[in-house]
């Protein structure tokens, strides 16, 4: 398959020219094509925000739900039909702010899905308020004297929660981002990719140039199975490392722990209740 197989004719893209979201969309199409994932077997799930519109811009099944609620829906879609490739994709406000509790518990649950977070360190769609990852000091229409809250560190938090796959990418590097996405999608379990991207309209601090100067790839010697080393990299602020920080291959995906799939694999929609067995259960309440 090729990236253009995911092109959607007539998609009216509502992003600002020059926005980092375009880079992510292209990297994603490339990754899906190289992994040979057919649009019919793919479900993109998103919340609300600029990033959350991504599923409307490529050929796929999609569930574009509510602000912050992509992960519960995505988890259930995967649990109802484990044969689908499920990608939950939204912004930093959506996933870490409004959806923070779901994010935390989805990591604990470990469904086999990919969680892409477009991290522009600002709320784009509502025009530039602080997001959980906004740097301290950033002035916005609401944080008029500058952000004072400690920024959320999604990578450190995910590693602390023993997420099974934790990575960071930068939308300005299409090739590397595509490679990281491929690994994440292939990973059997929850995979977080926090994708840094500039918001040209509202984030005047973390510009393309700023990201260029403040990121670098993890060096080849980094061992993603070493949780402490991964944690140390996640805490770095001098530069923001890119690449796969952490990988835990021990954790079982949520769907595989479900008794519903213990001795059958067909998706739920193919099943009918065994009414004779149900009558038998009712009969056991006799004595």
């Amino acid at each position: 398959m090729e990236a253009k197989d995911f092109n959607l004719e007539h998609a009216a893209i509502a992003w600002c020219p020059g926005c980092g979201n375009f880079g992510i969309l292209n990297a994603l199409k490339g990754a899906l094509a190289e992994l040979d994932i057919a649009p019919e077997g793919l479900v993109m799930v998103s919340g609300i925000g600029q990033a959350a519109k991504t599923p409307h811009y490529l050929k796929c099944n999609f569930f574009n739900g509510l602000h912050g609620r992509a992960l519960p829906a995505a988890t259930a879609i995967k649990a109802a039909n484990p044969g689908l490739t499920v990608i939950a994709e939204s912004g930093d406000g959506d996933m870490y702010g409004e959806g923070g509790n779901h994010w935390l518990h989805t990591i604990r649950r470990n469904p086999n899905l990919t969680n892409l977070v477009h991290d522009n360190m600002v709320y784009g769609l509502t025009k530039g308020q602080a997001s959980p990852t906004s740097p301290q000091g950033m002035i916005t229409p609401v944080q008029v004297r500058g952000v004072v809250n400690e920024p959320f560190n999604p990578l450190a938090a995910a590693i602390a929660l023993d997420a099974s796959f934790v990575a960071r990418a930068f939308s300005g590097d299409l090739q590397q981002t595509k490679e990281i996405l491929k690994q994440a999608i292939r990973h059997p379990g929850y995979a977080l990719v926090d994708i840094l991207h500039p918001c040209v309209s509202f984030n005047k601090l973390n510009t393309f140039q700023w990201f260029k100067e403040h990121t670098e790839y993890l060096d080849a010697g980094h061992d993603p199975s070493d949780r402490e080393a991964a944690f140390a990299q996640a805490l770095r602020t001098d530069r923001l490392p890119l690449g796969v920080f952490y990988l835990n291959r021990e954790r079982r995906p949520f769907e595989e722990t479900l008794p519903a799939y213990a001795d059958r694999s067909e998706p739920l929609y193919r099943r009918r209740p065994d009414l004779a067995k149900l009558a038998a259960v009712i009969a056991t309440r006799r004595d």
Partner: protein
Amino acid sequence: MSQTNQATPSRTGVTVVIAGEAGQGIQTVEYLLAKILKSEGYHIFASKEYMSRIRGGANSTAIRVSSARVAAYAAGIDLLVALDREAPAHLADRLSPATIIVGDAAGLGLDRPVLDIPFAAIAAAAGNKLFANSVASGAVAGLFQVDFAGVERAIAAYFRGKPQAMVDQNIAAARTGYEAGRELAAAGRAGLTPPDKDAAVAGDPIINGSEALALGAVAGGCNFIASYPMSPGTGVLIYLSQFAADFGIVAEQAEDEIAAINMGLGAWYAGARAMVSTSGGGFALMTEAVSLAGMIESPMVIHIAGRPGPATGLPTRTEQGDLELALYAGHGEFPRLILAPRSIDAAFYRTAEAFQLADRFQVPVFILTDQFLVDSFLNLPELDPAGLENEPRIVATPADYRRYELTPDGLSPRGIPGHGAGLVGVDSDEHDEAGHITEDLELRVRMVDKRLRKLELLRTDLVPPLFHGPADYRTLVVGWGSTYPAIREALAGLDRPDVAQLHLEQVYPLPPSAVAYLQKAERIILVENNATGQFGKLLRQETGRAASDRILKYNGMPFAVEELAERFAALLTADTAAEGSAV
């Protein structure tokens, strides 16, 4: 005991109440007695009232033991099994001079006769004072003069898997209690006349409301439940979790109610049949996603087991206080269906139907119950899953599939991802036929109209109302949901040829035949287990008919048959008197 009479229509049998503190094992006695008395040939109906605590407090279970089916709460107590000193005081206003009290006479310290059976002392002698439950169960069985073999069977079943010595000790403890009870009965000192037996009852299953709902869900094809615990909605989650392996159900305890219902919507999207079970406080958190269901036209089944609010209210008590919440939950305008089962057996069938209706109309379907209904249990011969329809209405998508195809009746064929050549897109923003975001305001209007056309499809007798009484009634007593058995029993005792009962299980939209019944009534007496008459307001809004009289109760307890009978009698006498003076 006396047979039915007009003043106390509850007396088709005997009401046995077991009372004591939490942690004393009231539920054990309830379980054992239900099994023992049912296998002996009595109909049983048990409902409980308890405090929100794990130990201590004052709690009770009432078991109506009768020769014919009863399913309503009756306040009067014929036999009180008092497990602690607080019990008689706790139940003071339900006791009468005729109430037989059995317990440790010295310990209870009452200035009225007590059938003296020292449960704790007998239990201690049998090996452990914790066996008092078995002693009490044995004692009641003795008072009813049942065959001891039934007691033994029930205890063995209850303690299945426990060490044999423990089972034997409990049986021995029960036997001592049994002998004491039987001697009192045989000596004519108990004053208890057991009702007639009905041998057919012995083989009936005993089912509680939560279980009936869960079984109905399975029958309706439910294969996904996500919920967050909140009494009294938790029971359904518990039962479906227990059925998970056998019936291939995904049962997940979500991190909160918001996650639970969004999981439910995701599951339906992918072709599962999902439900959530909660109570008003939990449902309050789900309202955002109810609106999402409306927008994406997703089926959803939402069970709300009512308890008194606002906020966390009385956590363990009952109320029909959330009808308006269900009716108006979610922002924007979209169709929904609200069902309220009238009884435990109806909970089974209505729940199964809820899945068909949700699937067929692609709308959220509510099942409103309450603590009284989900926590009660009875013997039920007729739960029969055979023939219940559970075929999902999903289509294999063609390549050019559009999820929101504009159709004359508003229903678009529902595809799911991975089934067919097409793509399935749903969106919470206003969308075009393919599910993509649109800001085309003309299309917006067409989409709103499409969704609202489904409301017209719902305005039929999907679940017909129940009508009992003469065709030429003047007064119509109207109720909804779990109040049915109490209203029915109270009216049966009154025997008025001009009074009929109309009961609704489809509470929104109103079934047209119910509207016709209402229009015919000269006088409407509305019965609701809430303080503001929520259903009455809905009736007025939908039909223009206001209730003439309202009987409302909101102290956390269900309606008792006796109190309804009294209220009806008073209202109807006033009516007759008024007429008399006009002549």
